[in-house]
């Protein structure tokens, strides 16, 4: 049954998967393409600057993968009004776990492509002394960020229409409260508080604020 669901997930998200896998190959290779000879006094400067500049691409890639896979996990059921899912002789929890697992498997595939690409990219570049390449570290971080974002988005996309409307209403209320607080000079920004809570050091998305350096000290 898992294979059937994995196949259905692949069919839904194959275009996104190919694009994301292509990006996973391109980002590490492009980020290190301008690396000069080790004897160049500016080699470390150029390498670290380029790595930092391209560092933002990894969390964006993780978020895009999570979004595409979470949408792909739910889209077939939304389209058929969940008739197929309801006719299956399995519990809802088991069915959802299979759907979740199928998306997760494809996330692992993109992470594996990224791992290979980062290893190839860092092998090709001569590193100045005292600098190190972290292909494994960046892949683990990508996987962790993708997992957190995928789980959140999987939960959000599986909401009932009523619950989805409720979430949207709460979000609009927060935006409205932020506008009113700003106009009344209350010195408090509820939207900022929500963003801080989502990206705070112990939040599920905290990893997106971490350092994403393929080459570092």
């Amino acid at each position, binding site marked *: 049954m898992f294979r059937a669901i994995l196949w259905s997930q692949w069919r839904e998200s194959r275009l996104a998967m190919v694009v994301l896998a292509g990006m996973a190959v391109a980002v590490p290779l492009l980020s290190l393409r301008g690396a000069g000879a080790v004897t160049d*006094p500016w080699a470390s400067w150029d390498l670290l600057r380029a790595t930092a500049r391209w560092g933002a691409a990894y969390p964006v890639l993780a978020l895009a993968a999570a979004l595409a896979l979470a949408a792909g996990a739910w889209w077939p059921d939304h389209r058929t009004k969940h008739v197929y899912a*309801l006719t299956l002789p399995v519990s809802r929890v088991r069915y959802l776990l299979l759907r979740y697992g199928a998306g997760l498997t494809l996330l692992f595939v993109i992470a594996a492509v990224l791992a290979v690409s980062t290893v190839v990219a860092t092998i090709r570049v001569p590193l100045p002394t*005292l600098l190190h390449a972290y292909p494994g570290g*960046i892949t683990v971080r990508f996987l*962790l960020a993708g997992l957190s974002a995928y789980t959140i988005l999987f939960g959000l996309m599986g909401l009932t229409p009523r*619950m989805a409307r409720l979430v949207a209403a709460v979000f609009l209320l927060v935006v409205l409260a932020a506008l009113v607080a700003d106009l009344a000079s209350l*010195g408090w920004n509820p939207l900022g508080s929500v963003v801080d809570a989502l990206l705070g050091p112990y939040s599920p998305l905290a990893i997106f604020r971490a350092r*994403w350096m393929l080459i570092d*000290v």
Partner: protein
Amino acid sequence: MLALLAPWGGSLHAQEPAAVLQRMEERLDSMQLARALRDSLALRAKYSDTVVAGGLRIATSARLRPFALAAGEEAWQSLVARFGPSVTAHGAFPVTTFGSTRSTVPKLAKAGDLARGLERSAALWIWSTQGAAVLRWMGGTVPTGTISHSDVGDIAEELLRTPARPNRACYSGETMACAAALGIHVGADTLDAWFEPDTWPRLAGMVSGELNGLERVARERCMNAGDLSACRSILTPARVLPPVGVVGRQYLVQLAFESGGASAFERLAADTGVTLEHRLAAAAGVPIDTLLNRWGASLRAVPRGPAAPPQELLLGLAWSGLLLTMALRGSRWR
């Protein structure tokens, strides 16, 4: 006009440019202090109430008094903790103004925010009156708060990124190289002590700020033709990229204060006639070599790279597990 300026130009030319610049900076500092005092005296007349919290004086209205007092006391405690109990020994702080007779305190305003602002301006005053030379060395930026673990990592990265002569040796543990990288113990030729000549053309390209016509021509010659004398004329100590930036220097001061305890700033400010390294060593209560070793060791101790630490891994997995459980317990199909 040129004839009038000639005697000035001649006398300036005969002097050491760095010494002239330093004298001009000192004059400017004293003029700015005098102006701040005059402004604070003029403003004092406009406010109906003055709050006194330790050595801080805050001109405010009667309505804002409790708020200003709470913030002032918090700021003062923090200043005493940072600079020692005899922080006001060298004269009173200028009066700070807060609000006016018509102002009200926002309902959700925190005294802590005002306290931090008061502390910052008082700290700038303390540094500029009692530690002006150290403040200049820190690029005129007063250290605020504690330099974080991640900032220390950034200093380590800067040390290895900038192609300065002493940087790699400093990172490997050579104390004198760290002194040179931090601008504490540099020879007469700062540019040559910091950078190899083959890096100068690119460094010249990084010079920002206003350049006059001659300087722009010299920069072009340096960058395009590799003319080292032209590079020298552009890359003055004030303009050249330092091997370690302001945060790295502030971190050394922070380590000196941590090592020196409550009276560290008093010892730093006690003798203005000695060199920077002696003042920092006096503040830290240890030889400058020990202080620089600690600085270098703490840079090397920061873990770098994107490898997820175990707590980050556990946190990510725990959140994912929790959110998945919530999603599985949803009400769809029920």
